């Protein structure tokens, strides 16, 4: 008589164990899928980074007009005296060119380093006739040596395309002399303008929509829906808008295809993102904080200024910086608005002609000379470092503010 319930219990037990096993297996399958997805993502990133580094380092075959050893025994131009370098320049270059150098800065007053660079560029005049990627430099050295032996009078050099000179020099039609300076400064100007325009407008709109606008009014709903839609509009359309409004219509103020036109276009582009992010940040402030403020007789503005903004500022700031780093990476709208294709003059005001890092990268990668691919790779690293440091700044700022606020 006693065995029946016991049997039942054992049976139940087995059933439950089988069920648990089944659920475990299902969980494991999902876990494996998540793992796979993450692996694919990480792999893609690693390949991207390797690909960039692959083009930035590698052997180059250089042909010099004049071997440096024939000018100075050590082969290092900076071992020479200033007057020797000047003599070399005057001997080899046209008087017109010398006069131009003198008008930029008298040769007698220039540093040895500067003079040596002039000699290097104008007299030795190295030309890269062949370049190899990092991969080829490591695994195809036989082929590289063959190429070298076929070209007599050339020097094989392992070159990093990302150098201090690359950061300091402006654009140049010759890849080994081309630099990022103008584009980098252009991007910095752009960040400044976008920040000054889009941050206050974006945050103010978010405050209005979240705190003041009545959600039950039809026009507020239309505004809200349209902001979300604007955030999804392709950036090239913003470029066309910027061209029509800032370059053409307001050309008298913006002076046409200038940094300020481009900056305003990008500001428009990221404004919806900043508004959405800031609204989410404000929405995340707990109702209890509002109530405690209203409860002691605070007005709406006092509540917003003293409690809601301080409590949401870290998230607002993070959202804004992430939006701005998106603007830094934009290319299409700037092409439409009219970034300069070739510019060597540093931008010095908001009305300067400009180019930015992504534009420069795009142009270099479109050039026929293979060496510009290496230059573009170096510029990509600069752009990535710029964006990563902005994102890092966002995270650090957020953590610092959050630490002060919460316990």
């Amino acid at each position, binding site marked *: 008589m006693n065995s029946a319930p016991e049997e039942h219990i054992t049976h139940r037990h087995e059933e439950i164990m089988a069920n648990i096993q089944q659920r475990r297996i299902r969980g494991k399958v999902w876990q494996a899928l998540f793992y796979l997805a993450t692996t694919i993502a990480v792999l893609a990133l690693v390949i991207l980074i390797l690909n960039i580094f692959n083009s930035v380092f590698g052997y180059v075959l250089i042909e010099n007009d004049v071997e440096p050893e024939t000018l100075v025994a050590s082969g290092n131009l900076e071992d020479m005296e200033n007057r020797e370098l000047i003599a070399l320049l005057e001997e080899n270059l046209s008087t017109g060119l010398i006069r131009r150098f003198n008008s930029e800065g008298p040769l007698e007053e220039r540093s040895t380093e500067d003079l040596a660079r002039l000699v290097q560029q104008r007299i030795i005049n190295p030309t890269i006739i062949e370049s190899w990627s990092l991969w080829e430099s490591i695994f195809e050295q036989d082929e590289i040596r063959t190429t070298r032996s076929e070209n007599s009078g050339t020097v094989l050099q392992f070159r990093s395309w990302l150098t201090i000179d690359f950061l300091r020099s402006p654009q140049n039609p010759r890849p080994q002399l081309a630099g990022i300076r103008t584009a980098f400064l252009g991007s910095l100007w752009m960040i400044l303008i976008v920040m000054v325009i889009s941050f206050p407008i974006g945050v103010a709109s978010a405050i209005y929509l979240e705190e003041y606008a009545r959600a039950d009014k039809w026009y507020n709903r239309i505004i809200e829906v349209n902001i979300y839609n604007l955030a999804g509009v392709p950036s090239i359309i913003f470029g066309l808008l910027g061209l029509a409004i800032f370059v053409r219509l307001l050309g008298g103020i913006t002076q046409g295809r200038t940094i300020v036109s481009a900056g305003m276009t990008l500001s428009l582009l990221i404004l919806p993102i900043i508004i959405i992010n800031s609204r989410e940040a404000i929405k995340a402030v707990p109702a209890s904080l509002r*109530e405690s403020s*209203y*409860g*002691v*007789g*605070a*007005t709406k503005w006092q509540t917003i200024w003293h409690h809601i903004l301080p409590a949401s500022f870290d998230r607002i700031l993070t959202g804004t910086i992430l939006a701005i780093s998106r603007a830094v990476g934009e290319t299409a709208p700037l092409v439409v608005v009219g970034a300069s294709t070739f510019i060597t003059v540093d931008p010095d005001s908001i009305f300067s002609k400009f180019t930015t890092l992504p534009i420069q990268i795009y142009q270099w990668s479109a050039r026929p000379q293979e060496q510009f691919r290496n230059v573009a790779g170096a510029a990509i690293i600069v752009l990535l470092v710029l964006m990563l440091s902005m994102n890092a700044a966002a995270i650090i700022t957020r953590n610092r503010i959050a630490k002060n*606020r919460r316990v």
Partner: protein
Amino acid sequence: MEATLAMQTKNLDFYYGTFQALHDVSLNFMRSHVTALIGPSGCGKSTLLRCLNRMNDLIPETRADGEVYFNDQNIYTEDVDPVEVRRRVGMVFQKPNPFPKSVYENIAWGARINGFRGDMDELVETSLKKCALWDEVKDKLKQNALELSGGQQQRLCIARAIAVEPDVILMDEPTSALDPISTAKIEDLITELKQRYTIIIVTHNMQQAGRVSDQTAFFLNGWIIEAGDTKDIFFNPREERTEAYISGRFG
């Protein structure tokens, strides 16, 4: 001694959208008395409390019909500023919600935004002393208020409320998140404070209502079922439903 009226509701209806949360509530709140609002969850007692300082204005799509008198002034007329109402009818919430600022600033902020010009240090000290909190926090004034214990935070919230010198203090289940010892301290404080302030308290704790209140109103589904002196409500209720709720047969 005839007690005077501090607040009064007349035929108050309240709606969340189309849902009617209060039906024809007419209730008197005596000056320097403690009035307890009791009833099961969702009966409208918190809604009524939040009508008394127009806190419900903050919730969109709500509507109040009827009159709420504070010092013979209907606070639901056009010309009344809810900010002024909230200064004079302070509030303490269910979950302690001090500002994420220093203890000192928690007290000082409300006074400052209301244009207080006197000695702030003194105001902070007297407000904290009234709430029996001064000895515990006098060395921690610069500390973040969120570092205090839950009971201390709630007493700080009461101190914050009285620092702006209200006439009435509304308390929405002020001890429901606290341990028994902290609860006892708050209850002592309420008895202390009623000398100077009119206190209206929502509570789920029958013993608490019995201990601290002078008058009690029992709510059910948005209606007042019974209101009167606490000892009558507890020991001699006229309504069967009141007795059933108080003795724990439902709710």
